[in-house]
């Protein structure tokens, strides 16, 4: 664990961990609200967002891309809500209509415009390129205190760190109203909480996390991290606070183990090239969830579900 680790593996692992945590945190609330698939929808509409941002700005600079993706996510969420209410369509179907349509629009725009020479394609959007976010300027742990080397850190690290911080602070700040509205929306309304605004705020925070994570690691991780760590955590405990802690632990574990497997796993099987780190992180989170489904202490339902009493 020396200079080579710091140079090649430290930053991708950090980015993977931060992205995973940023997605898993709001994922806990989405899971309890039966809105787990919002993460799926958001990650699909990121593509049209960045393509449109590219068409408008003409560059692939990070800021317009992120703004475009964020705007697309918010628009998608608003569209889903509008279609659900106006058309009286069930949430799942409304989501399916919106994200597939926007995604199809994104692909069409991408194919119809000249993006050759720019690093912009569907596969990259899906898989990201975690492996390439290395820290060339580093030559050992000492670089962590060397300003010149620190300046060479991949910019994705800074962005995902900020996004992760925003999500953590928002979760801490709005913990009580979030839990309250998640558990009992009707009651929350009667004590004067702005239920709709809180719900929308949650989805926007999820979109911020998704977009920042997408920027660094692609959309596969985003969907997996919204759902798998919170779902596995849900099966470990009957306290919501504890569940959130477990989900962060699982997200971190998935990111680290997944990255290591992707980088070194193939060598163990006699192959020379690494496999997709994003895909492997998602796979590991799935294995953790599978183990939780089979063995976790609190995997069975306790109380009656909503409306079944």
């Amino acid at each position: 664990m020396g200079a080579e680790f710091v140079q090649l593996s430290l930053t991708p692992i950090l980015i993977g961990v931060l992205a995973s945590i940023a997605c898993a945190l709001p994922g806990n609330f989405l899971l309890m609200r039966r809105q787990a698939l919002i993460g799926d929808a958001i990650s699909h509409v990121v593509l049209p967002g960045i393509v449109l941002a590219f068409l408008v700005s003409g560059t692939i600079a990070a800021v317009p891309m992120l703004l475009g993706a964020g705007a697309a996510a918010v628009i998608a969420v608003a569209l889903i809500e509008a279609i659900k209410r106006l058309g009286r369509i069930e949430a799942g179907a409304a989501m399916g209509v919106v994200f597939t349509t926007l995604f199809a629009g994104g692909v069409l725009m991408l194919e119809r415009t000249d993006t050759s020479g720019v690093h912009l394609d569907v596969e990259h959007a899906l898989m990201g390129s975690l492996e390439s976010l290395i820290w060339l300027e580093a030559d050992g742990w000492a670089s962590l205190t060397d300003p010149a080397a620190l300046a060479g850190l991949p910019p994705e690290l800074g962005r995902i760190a900020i996004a992760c911080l925003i999500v953590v602070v928002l979760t801490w700040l709005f913990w009580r109203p979030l839990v309250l509205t998640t558990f009992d929306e009707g009651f929350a309304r009667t004590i004067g909480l702005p239920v709709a605004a809180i719900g929308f705020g949650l989805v926007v925070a999820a979109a911020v996390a998704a977009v920042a994570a997408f920027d660094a690691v692609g959309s596969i991780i985003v969907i997996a991290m919204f759902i798998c760590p919170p779902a596995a955590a849900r099966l470990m405990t009957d306290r919501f606070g504890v569940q959130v802690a477990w989900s962060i632990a699982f997200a971190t574990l998935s990111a680290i183990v997944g990255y290591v497997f992707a980088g070194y796993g193939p060598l163990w099987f006699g192959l020379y090239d690494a496999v997709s780190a994003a895909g492997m992180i998602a796979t590991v989170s799935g294995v953790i969830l599978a183990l939780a489904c089979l063995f976790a202490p609190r995997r069975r339902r306790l109380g009656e579900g909503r409306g079944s009493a």
Partner: protein
Amino acid sequence: MTPLFQALTLQLGYNATLVAIGAMLLGVAAGASGSFMVLRKRALVSDAMAHATLPGVGLAFIVMVALGGDGRNLAGLLAGSAISAGIGLLIVDWMTARTRLGEDAAIGAVLSVFFGFGIVLLTVIQTMSGGRQAGLESFLLGSTAGMLLADALTIAVGGALSVAAVWILRRPMTLVAFDEGYARSLGVNVRLTDLMMMGLVLAVTVIGLKIVGLILIVALLIVPAVTARFWTERSASLIWISGAIGGLSGFAGSAMSAAYADVPTGPVIVLFAAALFVLSLLFAPLRGVVGALIRHRRFQARVHRRQGLLALARSEPIHDPVTLRLLRSEGLIRADGVATEAGQDAAARAVRDEWRWEVARTRHKDTALTGRYDGLTPIESVFTPDEIAGFDRLIAEGQT
């Protein structure tokens, strides 16, 4: 002749024609079976299935190469994708039934993990085949360009078989989707029907992989069904309207894609269906937004008019600004809030109706009729003129 016209009239070559017909048949089957999923509120289960095909495609390729064959054999790849999608579906059902997690979480978990694992396999294949492109990425978004004749035939035949399956299953499927309990009482095996429908959706997903791609195939299952929902309240016609929308989108989309370069088939099919959806959402007479908005405004006006008139009749002050504005604009009250001649007449009629209902309710203690006593239903629509005359006589007697 423009290329688009040529494509639409099936004059763009044998392959393109086969693909267009295949896409149309696929669209019909997807629309029809998708309507079942949407009615059962399980629309996104098909999304999990579609994403779960990817590892199957990868593994099938690896197995076929290991056996010394051509890894790109479409039938083999589709068989692999069907197996892994089936496993994904079983896991969704198992997680929902056996753990405390909801179906949405199960769908999302299967979708992302299978897809992630599939991507891992794709990167393995890239290194395995030594730089030679396996072309499996085309399953993500579909691609009909440069399709082999055998592939086009596979799709056309598969599409035809799915449509046949929809035809055979239409009765139990409608019954179960509409009312599960009723279907059971008729002796329909609900579990078996569900299973067969899932099988059909699975078949549609797999056949659609090559044309539409696994990310967008779910649109072909959901969008036509949701669109059809705006046009009918009957589930029997829903299936066929949805099938027609799906077929139309499939045909038009694949024709357009064949006619122009750089127009990918899958997205065009989806966008065509989405355009039909938007039109229906806005303008369908039965459930469209514009119609509903107009009806709601009228309804609101009726409520406020009635409440206002009753308040006038009882000489109660009216505070509600909406009511005041409405009564003023209809000339029922003056600017200062006092009832006009017309307003007094209308108020008297409203009160007379109330009074008639009052009598009707004591006379006819019959829920079917008096359940309509909601303040808005005109009494003339429930009782015959002579019955109403009878109420009036009773009112007159009660007053003397």
